């Protein structure tokens, strides 16, 4: 038969294929993207995290038992073939051995690529039942994994491989802690792991109902311009267009995208749309339409004229005397207006809009100064005068991206007279507050549901698309879906602030520090979200690692026309840590003392008084802290032994030079005095537990932390404990998932709520058993025991809910604190520098971490791998490159340079150094952010050890190495 007859002449063709063993015959446009087709057929596990490129692996399927990227196929290519997706692995509802192993080792976190990973590994084990490390790496090379650093996948392969032979096989997962506890500190599958690895509906995009509108954003081609005219009239007439939003018809409300506690320490320096455009990719107009195609068609019909302005890209340009002004608007303060306000706002241009400061943050916007702060303890001048040796060094960091696999997404709809926002967010309550204010409605009319989050890493602490979708839904009454493209992830998302940090250190001959001065200049880009707090963290999460009586810091943050910045895991600490820790290593070399000895002489330890914290509060007065737990001593001891630190290694290849480096790191556990978490635990009718927490699990396992804490305290099986979280209608208030607050704040709130429920249960049981409450105890599993008798939780719940009962039993409490729990760590690495190619290979990297009690050891471990690999990426490869006009040259993951499995250290290890923190729940402290702070300084030091050059600007590219070696 002639093919033309077979497939017809029209734009539709009939294709037949087998999908997960079911025969399909469908009519489709032959060029329809296969990933989209599978989505249309209800297979939501085949996802899109980038425009078709085959790089991320999110759309992986099996085509005739071979791994391929559905995004790189068209519908017609499926014709006549056998397609399998992850749904084929868990046919009977249960998980396959590979899926189970992935959940067990803790890699199903943000999980956007977990179904793809399950397919890839299943395919590998079919081909190679006993694969080598190299073969595993080859299989994993088609997956981009950002959250868990690849290393635990090797363990998953090992376990799955054995399970195929012996279904009962129990492999080693991760070291467990706290033998006195039943559940906390033990490896238990993450509560949402099975759902996610099976590729079930979980993310915002899985909620879209037929008939929803899509929103697409027209973005500025210029880095700095005014819109001199905009005409949407023709575009609006395009059939299928529901609405076009520009600065002319958007709400007249100024806000910050930063999802921080109110009042935010960030200026309200933007509206939904402005007449002034401040970066390439800034919002010009939103088109809301029935389809993407219509939206783009309408967008091409919008006529815009721009008045171009000179651009400001670097810090130097921004602070220059006659620099173009990025925010030349009117200025206001909600509190604490300075006396010179009139002078500050002089000459403002109304086209720039306004800036409203909730409180002063040391800004002078007409001079491009977004914020500033300086302070210190002791007398640094005196300290430097007392020093035998002083060094002063300058370090620079580039603009790097969070790159979550799940792009920023939102789906908004109307339910009755209320607005419902399905969000991929770290901060549901801040989203609710902001959106209500933007729309001018009260907060009871807004419900935010945090869906599973496929990676956030800080970037989803900003409210980057919820406002405009919400407004479109509010105005049209129709559901609206808006998802960033990968390019928008680069050009319209928050990223790490580029910084320029000068460190001055004074020390005695023996290495004891007499004074430290840090001068931080940061580039906040077009808007001031997080402009005080992130750069401040460069000091507040680094200076308190050191005992020194005289410390001072000065932080100055500038507006410019680079791409937006904001929060990113580590929150300024990675930059500060790079500068301060590398400077210490440089000092050790200059003084001729061992690097480790210098660290040992100056580091803090248990009992140290952290005086410097007094002047490092986030927008408020901080508190001096006496350090209650610190695992640095043990971490340093383990690391220095494992690396034979100080011993020189040689390579047999004369081009390769080997060096070792290390750094100590810290972070915080939430923001004492600022954060708050609440929890409620209900004893369900049959004696099981339902935990309601406001905490936002962004893949990290916070729901699992909460379930474990509740089950531990209430002596019940984990399987009988469920968690509902992050829904502003159904769960109590929580400030959100940022500043490493989850385990400490939300975990402590659950702990208190569990204790409250326990008290109520014992009290009621005492009445029922007619025994004194003091003689009753909870016993595993789910029993109250007295001296005479006992009651099961079921009996208690049943009685409480009966016609003569007390009413159903609910424990609740909130957690606020002034107590600080600081996680610590020591990172060691060994690098091989190829002096011919300039390539740095990280041969060995160990992170020794103190997070108090690791509540979920396997999840915590996987997260540290992820944090470390991200920071190795920032150190060696990742960088957003711009041309002189502020246009990004590499807005895709491959050219931007994220690390893949082939880039991980050969010997990659995470080890926990357990400490007992009196304030964390069961002694738990935070873990994820702290792990991003060590790589740059450890690698810089190792490179110096190898080839004798100091690299002081991220990333350490081969070009910089070769230049340093005099080869270019």
């Amino acid at each position, binding site marked *: 038969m002639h093919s033309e007859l077979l497939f017809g002449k029209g734009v539709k063709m009939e294709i037949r294929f087998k999908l997960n063993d079911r025969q399909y015959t469908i009519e489709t446009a032959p060029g329809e993207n296969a990933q989209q087709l599978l989505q249309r057929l209800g297979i939501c596990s085949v996802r899109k995290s*980038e425009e078709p490129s085959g790089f991320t692996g999110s759309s992986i399927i099996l*085509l005739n038992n*071979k791994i391929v990227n559905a995004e790189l196929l068209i519908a017609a*290519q499926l014709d006549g073939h056998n397609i399998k997706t992850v749904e084929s692995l868990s046919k009977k509802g249960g998980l396959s051995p590979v899926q189970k192993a992935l959940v067990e080792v803790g890699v199903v976190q943000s999980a956007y690529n977990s179904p793809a990973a399950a397919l890839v590994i299943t395919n590998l084990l079919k081909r190679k039942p006993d694969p080598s490390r190299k073969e595993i790496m*080859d299989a994993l090379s088609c997956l981009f994994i950002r959250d868990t650093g690849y290393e635990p996948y090797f363990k998953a392969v090992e376990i799955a491989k054995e399970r195929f032979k012996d279904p009962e096989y129990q492999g080693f997962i991760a070291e467990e802690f706290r033998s006195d506890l039943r559940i906390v500190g033990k490896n238990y599958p993450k509560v949402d792991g099975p759902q996610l690895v099976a590729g079930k509906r979980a993310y915002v995009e899985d909620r879209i109902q037929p008939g929803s509108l899509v929103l697409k954003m027209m973005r500025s081609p210029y880095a700095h311009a005014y819109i001199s005219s905009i005409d949407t009239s023709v575009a609006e007439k395009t059939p299928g267009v529901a609405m076009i939003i520009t600065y002319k018809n958007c709400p007249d409300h100024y806000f910050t995208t930063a999802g921080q506690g109110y009042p935010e320490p960030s200026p309200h320096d933007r509206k939904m749309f402005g007449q002034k455009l401040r970066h390439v990719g800034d919002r010009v107009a939103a088109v809301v339409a029935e389809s993407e195609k219509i939206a783009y068609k309408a967008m091409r019909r919008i006529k815009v004229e721009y008045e171009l302005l000179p651009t400001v890209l670097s810090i130097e340009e921004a602070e220059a005397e006659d620099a173009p002004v990025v925010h030349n608007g009117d200025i206001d303060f909600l509190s604490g207006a300075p006396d010179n306000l009139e002078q500050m706002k002089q000459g403002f241009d109304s086209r720039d809009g306004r800036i409203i400061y909730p409180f002063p943050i040391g800004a002078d916007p007409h001079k491009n100064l977004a914020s500033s702060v300086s302070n210190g303890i002791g007398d640094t001048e005196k300290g430097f005068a007392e020093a035998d040796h002083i060094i002063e060094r300058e370090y620079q960091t580039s603009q790097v991206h969070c790159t979550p696999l799940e792009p920023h997404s939102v789906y908004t709809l109307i339910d009755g007279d209320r607005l419902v926002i399905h969000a991929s967010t770290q901060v549901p309550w801040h989203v609710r507050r902001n959106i209500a204010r933007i729309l001018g409605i009260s907060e009871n009319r807004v419900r935010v549901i945090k869906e599973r989050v496929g990676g956030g890493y800080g970037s989803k602490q900003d409210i980057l698309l919820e406002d405009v979708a919400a407004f479109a839904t509010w105005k049209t009454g129709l559901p609206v879906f808006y998802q960033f493209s990968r390019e928008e992830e680069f050009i319209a998302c928050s990223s790490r602030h580029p910084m320029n940090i000068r460190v001055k250190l004074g020390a005695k001959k023996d290495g004891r520090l007499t004074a430290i001065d840090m001068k931080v200049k940061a580039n906040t880009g077009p808007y001031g979200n997080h402009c005080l707090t992130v750069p401040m963290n460069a000091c507040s999460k680094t200076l308190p690692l050191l005992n020194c009586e005289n410390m001072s810091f000065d932080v100055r943050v500038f507006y410019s026309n680079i791409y937006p910045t904001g929060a990113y895991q580590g929150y300024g600490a990675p930059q500060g840590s790079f500068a301060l820790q590398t400077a210490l290593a440089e000092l050790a070399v200059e003084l001729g003392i061992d690097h480790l000895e210098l660290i040992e002489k100056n580091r803090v330890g248990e009992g140290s008084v952290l005086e410097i914290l007094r002047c490092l509060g986030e927008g408020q007065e901080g508190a001096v802290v006496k350090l209650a737990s610190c695992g640095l001593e043990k971490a340093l001891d383990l690391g220095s032994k494992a690396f034979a630190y100080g011993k020189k290694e040689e390579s047999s290849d004369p081009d390769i030079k080997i060096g070792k480096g290390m750094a100590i790191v810290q972070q915080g556990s939430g923001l004492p005095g600022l954060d708050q978490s609440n929890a409620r635990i209900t004893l369900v009718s049959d004696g099981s537990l339902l935990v309601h927490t406001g905490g936002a699990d962004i893949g990290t396992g916070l729901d699992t932390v909460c379930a474990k804490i509740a089950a531990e305290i209430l002596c019940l099986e984990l399987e009988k404990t469920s968690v509902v979280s992050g829904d502003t209608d159904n769960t109590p208030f929580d400030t959100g998932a940022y500043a490493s607050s989850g385990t400490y704040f939300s975990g402590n709130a659950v702990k208190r709520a569990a204790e409250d429920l326990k008290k109520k249960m014992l009290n009621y049981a005492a009445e029922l058993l007619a025994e004194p409450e003091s003689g009753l105890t909870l016993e595993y599993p789910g029993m109250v025991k007295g001296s005479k008798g006992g009651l099961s939780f079921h009996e208690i719940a049943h009685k409480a809910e009966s016609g003569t009962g007390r009413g159903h039993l609910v424990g609740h409490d909130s957690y606020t604190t002034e107590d600080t729990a600081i996680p610590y760590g020591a990172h060691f690495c060994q690098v091989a520098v190829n002096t011919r190619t300039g390539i740095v290979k990280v041969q060995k990297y160990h992170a020794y971490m103190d997070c108090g009690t690791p509540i979920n050891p396997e999840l915590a471990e996987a997260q540290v791998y992820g944090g470390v690999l991200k920071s190795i990426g920032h150190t060696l*490869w990742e960088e957003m490159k711009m041309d002189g006009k502020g246009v990004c040259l590499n807005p895709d993951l491959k050219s931007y340079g994220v690390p893949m499995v*082939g880039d991980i250290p050969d010997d990659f290890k995470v080890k926990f150094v357990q400490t007992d923190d009196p304030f964390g729940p069961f002694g738990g402290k935070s873990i994820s952010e702290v792990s991003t702070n060590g790589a740059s300084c450890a690698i810089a030091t190792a490179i110096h050890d190898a080839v004798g050059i100091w690299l002081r600007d991220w990333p350490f590219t081969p070009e910089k190495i070769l230049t340093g070696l005099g080869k270019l």
Partner: protein
Amino acid sequence: MIKQFYKPTSLEEALLLKEKYENAATWFAGGTHLNHADYKASYDKVISLEGLGLHYIKTRDNTTTVGASVTLQKLAGNGLIPDALRKAAFVGAPRSVRNMATIGGDIASRGRATRLLPCLIALNARIETAQKKSLTLEEYLQTDRSELILKVIIPLVKSCCCVNSYSLQSGGPILVNAAVNIPGPESEDETPIIAIGNMEESVRRLTDIEKMVQDNPTLDRDALESAIVETINPVEDYLGSVKFKKYITAITVSECILSCCLERG
């Protein structure tokens, strides 16, 4: 946007379709290039090669013949294929792409980024088109785009052939992709071949360097590197400066030459 997808089951049928639609129809192999986000040209009729039976690898009379639809993965895993070509097929693309991308597609993309072309040039491979033309790859690169490649014919490797590439990281773009063939003492009638891809606008042979190696087989590394730096013309982009690119091309190519010389003895 693709409006028509033809899946002929014989070569005659495929050629008839092409004759009918001429340049309006595009050959469609694995689609990894055509379906890629970076592929901007538009096409509305495609002719799939899937049903043409071009998936074979055969060896006879000192030559290996590879059908145009053989995937990079099959190439990388097949013992009949010279080691250098297997390596070239393996490097730089994840398995999921290797499973779809074909040798014919790689050659016909003629992109400045290519995995196989330098190596195929170095191996003295020829292609055979549907018009029964037998061409060297260099000749093919001069021809009309629409000619259907049926097979690639690789002569027995008597000489030493080596490939080497440079990228900043495992999944990143390949900055330079080099292949070198240095004839062994027993094949003195042949001359060295040195080809590079990815660095300049198109794939090309470094004829000056070939001559240098031919004239003086005991060249030292420094002399080679300086000569290579002189002969190439990269442009600066986000991956690096001109100076850097010249340097890494020089070390990548010279490494390849020297290891070939070493092997040859």
